[in-house]
């Protein structure tokens, strides 16, 4: 048999096989801090949300002290999931199956027919299993281990290399919230996100407002940080050119585009702050969720900014392929939308992976070094060297 095919650091099968998918679910996504939403998703006592984090389903609920609690969403009777995605409980959570009921601290408080059916039941041993929860950069995070320790032990090293945004002062723009599937392994999507080499090429017509040649990037622990300044053309009249009101002071303009581990992408720019959360759904299928925060300003201010910047954007954005070369009306390569370009590239790459003739060529020394480093991080986790 020929030598095992590689994608640089990882074997090719890491991008196609169920076995690798399962191993990553166990070793990466079930053992790290997982993104669970925006801080404002839970805003009053009794409200809860649940999140699938690798193999664990964890829910977060706010107590009357306005502190969040996290529990594994597993009834202690026969394991049924207790709650659905989102909702609001008064004072208790009842399992749909046999009505075992828990208070918001996770204590089992009532069991139907307890006297006749469960003579010596010690309810105090059957509280919900605890998990950890914290808030950071306006986002909620959960960890399956109740003694996970401080979230800053995980993010502390990369934090100084993220955007200088005052995230708590920005507000979500709900219309920009989207969720879509990409027919590619989650690592293909991550690698596209951190590939510096492609910026000037795939996005030649869509991301020219940034100066890719001046990008600064690198890994801090398992997390990737990236920053680049605005292009001269865009910057020289930025107060007119920004598509929406600026969210950074003039002396701190630029775009930070980190990829926190695992699959937690952020895009922190001069005019908005956005998330790009990648969730593996299968070996060759991923889901991405985008949410956007903007400046807390009036609609009128947004309208004015849009008018002001319209001329800049109409001349600065164009598809990679001209309209004449487009295959059909919504050809991503003629769309002028860099996300559509990225999705296209990811899916086109994934399609080739199963070809017997597939083989990777050379890897760019600088611009693709993050791709190789990310593969190393994944390998370290999967082989149990990280945690």
């Amino acid at each position: 048999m020929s030598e095992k095919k590689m994608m640089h650091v990882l074997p090719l099968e890491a991008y196609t096989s169920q076995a690798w998918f399962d191993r990553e679910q166990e070793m990466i996504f079930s053992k790290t801090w997982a993104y669970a939403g925006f801080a404002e998703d839970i805003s009053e006592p009794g409200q809860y949300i649940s999140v699938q984090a690798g193999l664990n389903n964890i829910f977060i609920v706010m107590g009357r002290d306005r502190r969040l609690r996290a529990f594994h969403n597993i009834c202690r009777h026969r394991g049924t999931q207790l709650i659905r995605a989102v909702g609001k409980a008064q004072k208790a959570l009842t399992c749909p199956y046999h009505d075992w009921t828990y208070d918001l601290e996770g204590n089992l408080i009532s069991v139907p027919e307890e006297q006749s059916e469960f003579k010596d039941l010690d309810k105090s041993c059957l509280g919900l299993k605890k998990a950890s929860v914290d808030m950071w950069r306006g986002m909620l995070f959960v960890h399956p281990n109740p003694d996970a320790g401080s979230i800053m032990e995980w993010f502390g090293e990369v934090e100084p290399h993220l955007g200088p945004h005052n995230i708590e002062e920005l507000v979500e723009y709900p219309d920009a919230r989207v969720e879509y599937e990409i027919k590619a392994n989650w690592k293909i999507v991550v690698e596209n996100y951190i590939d510096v080499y492609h910026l000037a090429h795939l996005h030649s017509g869509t991301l020219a407002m940034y100066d890719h040649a001046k990008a600064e990037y690198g890994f801090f622990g398992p997390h990737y940080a990236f920053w680049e300044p605005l292009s001269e053309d865009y910057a020289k009249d930025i107060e007119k050119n920004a598509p929406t009101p600026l969210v950074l002071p003039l002396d701190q303009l630029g775009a930070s585009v980190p990829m926190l581990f695992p699959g937690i992408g952020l895009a922190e720019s001069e005019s908005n702050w956005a998330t790009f959360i990648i969730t593996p759904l299968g070996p060759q299928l991923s889901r991405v969720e985008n949410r956007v925060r903007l400046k807390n300003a009036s609609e009128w201010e947004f309208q004015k900014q849009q008018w002001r910047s319209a001329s800049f954007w109409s001349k600065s954005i164009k598809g990679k392929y001209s309209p004449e070369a487009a295959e059909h009306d919504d050809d991503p390569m003629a769309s002028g939308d860099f996300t559509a370009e990225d999705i296209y590239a990811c899916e086109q790459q994934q399609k080739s992976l199963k070809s017997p003739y597939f083989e990777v060529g050379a890897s760019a020394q600088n611009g693709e070094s993050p791709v190789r480093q990310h593969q190393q991080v994944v390998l370290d986790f999967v082989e149990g060297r990280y945690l």
Partner: protein
Amino acid sequence: MSDFHRLKVQDTKSLIGGMAKSVMFEVSTELTETFLWKAGQHLTLRFELNGEEQRRSYSISSSPFSGDPLRITVKRVKDGLVSNHINDNVKAGDIIEVMPPFGGFYLEPGETKRRTHYFFGAGSGITPLFSMLDSVMCAEPYSVAYLAYGNKNHKSIIFKDEFDALCDANKDRLAVLHVISDSSLWSGFTPWRKGIIDKAAIEALINENPPYAQDAQYYICGPGGMNTAVKTALMSFDVPADRIHMESYGGMVEVDDSVKGRAAKVEIALQGQTHLINMAADQTVLQAARAAGLSPPFSCQSGVCGACRGKLNKGTVHMRASMALEDKEIQQGAILTCQSVATSDSLSISYG
């Protein structure tokens, strides 16, 4: 047993118009280790006043992380022998007998810890809280802190200037919210709220400043019934008891003198020997034991430190104060011998 050490007073500072005094101690290099303290702990001081030995415990009011000297801050207590002595007489250069830092009410900051600390303090109860809060600002960079601070009026606020400076230096992660009980507020000082730190104030504090870092901790130190009231209020909002930390300030332990003691015969098991002694109606177990020539352990004599702890095996006692013990320990028979008077004719007590 911990011993007293002779510490030199480095300096003193009079506060709130002479109603309180900070005493800073010089700690020699040989004693540095012995006098390392945790934010929130207290010192026991020994004085000889009018021919009698007096011991009092005072919380340390400086942070072990700020580089400030070991410091206590003592507010005058009406007719308080020791507090007035300190305020009237103690000066730089004096030598005072001091026992090493002690106490289970403390906050240990951590470089990567990320917590929301809520402090509730009033009057001179602020002293341990100041040490804790300053420690969080110095040594726990990812955490935030809120202090609800109750006082009678703007003139009685201990450490007002220190808190203002701390807030200025830590705008993003510290808020000090003043609660003033005097109804006339002609001073030009606008507090966060009028009244006292009651349930409504606590609810407002938490609603206006919900925890961002989700590891929330609550610390209470105030006079009289404040501790219990704040704890009860917090628990009514479902704050788990293991997140609430409290201590009655040394000088203001709730003292219950309502029960008179009676004369009793006491059997004392101490260091492997059993002694039978007589106890007078007005004596505590500790006083009786010492009068009989025994040397049982003790330190603060004010029910704060727990050093004099014993176990009651037979009979009943009344404890004037029991701050140093958890309710559960009391149920299991633990007593503070320095606070216990007999309420039955015979007792049997053992030291652990």
